[in-house]
């Protein structure tokens, strides 16, 4: 069994990310979604999915790409390394397919922005219930 796991790892068929201590996914209360799968979350944060199911535009916010929060979010929630995420954003930005997400500097700024922006989605390391942002569980 160990050999099979190692073989899968070497061939790239399995990527050992964990969800321990993962950041909280937060959205504006108007967002008509109650949970997301990792693949759906990835579609949104890789700017492939630009609308919510009700047609409202998705507004994506991320922490500064070099911050520990973003690094953790990329690896544990998107199950991608930060350089992979950034490469997709650059590809989409410079081929005209989609704009990159908006960067914010802190959890507090993220909570404020998500609470104030209809259709917004982002993430925080520490959720604060005083804000109107809604937490989305990952499937």
């Amino acid at each position, binding site marked *: 069994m160990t050999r099979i796991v190692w073989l899968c*790892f070497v*061939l*790239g*068929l*399995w*990527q050992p*990310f964990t969800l321990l201590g993962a950041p909280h996914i937060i959205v504006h209360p108007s967002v008509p*979604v109650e949970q*997301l*799968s990792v*693949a*759906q979350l*990835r*579609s949104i944060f890789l700017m*492939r*999915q*630009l*609308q919510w*199911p009700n*047609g*409202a*535009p998705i*507004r994506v916010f991320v922490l500064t*790409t*070099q911050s520990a929060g973003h690094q953790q979010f990329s690896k544990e929630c998107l*199950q*991608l*390394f930060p*350089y*992979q995420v950034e*490469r997709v954003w*650059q*590809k989409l*930005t*410079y*081929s*005209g*397919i989609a*704009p*990159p997400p*908006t960067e914010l500097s802190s959890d*507090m*700024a993220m909570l*404020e*922005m998500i609470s*104030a*922006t209809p259709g917004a989605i982002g993430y925080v390391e520490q959720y604060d219930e005083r804000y109107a942002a809604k937490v989305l569980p990952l499937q």
Partner: protein
Amino acid sequence: MGISLWLMASSCYAHEAWHWHGYVSQGLIRAQDSNFVNNSGDWSSELTEFGMNASWQLQPSVRIAGQLMYLDGGQRYQKGHRIDYLFVNWTAHSSLDWQFDILVGRFKNMHWLYSSTRDVAMTRPLIVLPQSIYFDAFRDIAVGSDGVAIQSNHTGSFGELELNWSLGATPVSREQSRLVLSRQITGETEQDYVQQLSAFWRPVRSAAQYGISLLDSDFNYRADATDPYVHAWFNVQRFMLNWRYSAERFELSSELMQERIDATGFLAPNFKRVQFAQGAYLLARYQWTPQHAFIASIDKFYANKDDRGGRLLPLQSAGLIAPFFGYQTDLAVAWSYDIQKNLRLKAEMHWIEGTGRLGPNVVPDIAINRSRQHHIMALQLMYWF
């Protein structure tokens, strides 16, 4: 704090439909013993890339995007400005598991690993990409098309699947034709059409991505009265496989291609040749620290898979064309240093054997490209926003 964030949110609302970005890069390059950059083999500053792009969200499902860029690569490609892309993007379907987009206008080639951003310095792993796949003399023809394209993304239990299809044509300038066909041409080249299809698949919880792409294209060449060549028709068909493996500190990527070229005319009215070219590269990138990365690649190209050593070339050209025009092997190493978040310095060195991927490739430049072995050194500073 609260007021400023409210103002920022309002500003996002007001300007969210409008985005603009850009990049500028300048470098120094020296290609010794070849005509890759210039004929002298001296250091050159002809390594300039500048681009500005903008997009406008007209409606939730309709966007317009365009990019104007300026390129100076010496003899690698045509110098000057061009509209890299300008298209309308209609999102025909958008659900959490499936997105379907239609693009009309001039769009980028999304079918290969680096094709859509080969002209954007900081997105390339190397200053000079593996020429077997990303042949610089063909850059303007391969980078995009005028026509219609479809992009579709699916997610599910199988993982992520991206499907792309495009049909269009690219205007070909005389300078561009000279880079590909011959320096002496005086006629006009036209691309009749290019149709491409590609699929990229990333299995669930996988560090690897796999891709396949197909290309079919027709060109015609109209000789004029003073032309040393005659009317010609070319059909190009390309089959490609690509693969990428991503780990935290290192990444491997590879593309393989076979290209069928069916040429009629050009050298003589009744000239006819069908030839299969092959090429492949393996590229490795190691992130040593958050700022420093090292890259190494090996790239191989054979102009004729049935004559890998190029032995037929002297026989077909009365001894004028040396066998080494039939292949090219490029071993490259590079260093990348992120000085700041949006400011990067790259340096690289290529050791090359063979001249199979030096333009022009229909009538080779035997006067300058006389050496079987040649080198490229390059240094480039790039900034983007």
